[in-house]
């Protein structure tokens, strides 16, 4: 057993850290307040291939499709500086570009994957609806076949990247056999007539990341645009989300890391009662607990990534990683605000933003409760 990162992975961490500190750090607070992703950062991130991380070079990506640990490191390092960016690139790569690479036909890869991997187009994965959140089976957006086209009607909400996406993966109901519903994932070009962007949400955290409502009215999609087969949408959708969870876990590791670093610095500098507050046991215990929680998350996250790269069934470990990492990030950012006292409540201190960003992660991409359900079902069925 070897826990060390390869030299390549170390270089990826070093460069992504330097890049994030130089390009994103100084603008993160402003982006959060204005709910805007900075265009200069966007341009550079595309050049850096952060929009094609897990896609092979021949499809315009960075060639890390067989190195999910590196993908985690990248997401973690960007998330350490600004979770709005790590969710933007993380979602784009893991639940839009990657599924196209895994399930797409060669024609679909040429038409849709290459522009995504190059960052020429942004992608969104849309499953959630007003009546279909944790219960994804409740999806009501539907499609019927009319000649050579599927006609789609309905709406999606809370779609990450929704308002800025040009290529969408859409989970749609395509049939019902008795009580069994059939779903299909469609690849949709945002320029299709009948497609429109509704409300852009104003959120608690990851505020610069775009979260939007999307509306489809008699939107006609070519017959060949199904991803992985008609009626296969539910199975494919769950597989897509399994992979995405690892990256959401990685983002939370980054948030937790940021919270600890800020707290250590503050605890060593802030003097009260004649000594740095880090000398008080009350603070020490918090720092220790934060360290343990984040390190556990990191190990679980890398384990899930390693299992994925070694073609092992990583579903349960991925859920464990997402659950642990999001709750660890919440705990660590909560403690970080507490350690900073009243300063921690102020916008001028980044821990205030980390705290809001961490709360998001306990809910999106499968709530903590859903993760516990998934983990428990697997444990009770298969044993441990």
């Amino acid at each position: 057993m070897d826990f060390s990162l390869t030299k390549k992975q170390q270089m990826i961490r070093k460069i992504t850290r330097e890049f994030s500190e130089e390009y994103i750090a100084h603008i993160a607070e402003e982006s959060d307040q204005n709910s805007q992703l900075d265009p200069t950062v966007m341009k550079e991130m595309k050049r850096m291939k952060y929009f094609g991380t897990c896609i092979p070079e021949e499809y315009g990506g960075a060639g890390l499709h067989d190195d999910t640990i590196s993908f985690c490191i990248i997401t973690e390092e960007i998330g350490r500086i600004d979770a709005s960016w790590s969710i933007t690139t993380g979602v784009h790569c893991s639940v839009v570009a990657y599924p196209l690479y895994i399930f797409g036909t060669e024609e679909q890869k040429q038409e849709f994957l290459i522009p995504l991997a190059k960052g020429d187009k942004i992608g969104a994965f849309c499953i959630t609806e007003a009546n279909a959140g944790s219960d994804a089976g409740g999806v009501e957006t539907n499609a019927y076949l009319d000649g050579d086209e599927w006609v789609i009607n309905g709406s999606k909400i809370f779609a990450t990247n929704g308002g800025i996406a040009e290529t969408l993966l859409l989970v749609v109901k395509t049939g019902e056999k008795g009580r069994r519903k059939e779903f299909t994932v469609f690849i949709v070009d945002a320029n299709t007539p009948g497609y429109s962007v509704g409300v852009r949400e104003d959120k608690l955290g990851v505020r610069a990341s775009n979260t939007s409502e999307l509306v489809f009215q008699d939107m006609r999609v070519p017959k060949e645009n199904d991803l992985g087969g008609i009626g296969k949408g539910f199975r494919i959708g769950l597989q897509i989300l399994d992979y995405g969870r690892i990256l959401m876990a990685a983002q939370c590791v980054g948030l937790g890391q940021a919270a600890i670093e800020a707290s250590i610095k503050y605890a060593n500098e802030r003097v009260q009662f004649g000594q740095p507050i880090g000398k008080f046991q009350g603070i020490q215990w918090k720092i220790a607990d934060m360290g343990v929680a984040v390190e556990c998350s990191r190990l679980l996250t890398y384990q899930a990534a390693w299992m994925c790269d070694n073609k092992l069934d990583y579903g349960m470990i991925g859920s464990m990683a997402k659950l642990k990492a999001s709750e660890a990030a919440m705990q660590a950012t909560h403690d970080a605000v507490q350690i900073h006292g009243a300063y921690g409540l102020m916008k001028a201190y980044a821990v205030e933003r980390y705290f809001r960003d961490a709360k998001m992660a306990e809910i999106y991409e499968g709530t903590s409760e859903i993760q516990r359900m998934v983990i428990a079902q697997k444990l009770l069925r298969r044993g441990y």
Partner: protein
Amino acid sequence: MKIFTCIKQVPGISDVKIDPKTNTLIREGIPSIMNPMDKNAIELALSIKEERGAEIIAISMGPPQAENVLLEALSMGADKAYLLTDRAFAGADTLATSHALALGIKKILKDSDSNEKYMVICGTQAIDGDTAQVGPELAEDLDIPQITYVQKFELKGDDKVIAERAFRSEEIVVIETKLPVLISVLKEINTPRFPSMLGIVNAYKKKKVVFLDAEALKAEKAYIGLTGSKTEVFKIFIPERKGEHVKLTGTIEEMVKTLCQNLKEDKIF
């Protein structure tokens, strides 16, 4: 054409501590990085390559772990990388270092067996020693023209070189020459790119750093390492702080007036 870029691995922070007993730098716990101005050198090489095509060869002398900075150079887009590493190179001053680099460049040119034109780009100086000597000494050893402190560079036609030299900021000199040439660049010349993720992946998958030892370079012991060094380090120390600093405020006229008064009062003026 071939473009050699000389790279140095240096301690990561500029305010390294000095061990008062041994008068040497304390390097423990300090991460090593690529000398910042060497990144400007690579960036210039990359922009020349993008404009007219070239083979970029990164070269460094140092301990085996200096491979890391060469891998970073390869990630940025250098085509090949060579590390001159041998116990016999240890303890080298700038003269012995530049001699080893010259031998390396000559060997690579000879082995490539082509009459391609070439140039060498160095960062003006390294943040650890700050001497700015290796570039000029390397040019002398290679017996090619040199232009130091370059802030603007252009290659015209086949081999015409036009460079803006800014030794002092108020005195900019434009120099023209022909290839081959060695230039040492200032950080003002460009903004180095970060290596892309694809650049890193390909550097580790498709490229490798070639190690060359003293024997491979047919180096004579008298000219390399400690024995080949002419510099004797008399003493290294941190300058002591001799007094408090005074910060003047107000308009420029007011500050100048106060400054003159203070200088008179202190009998400096």
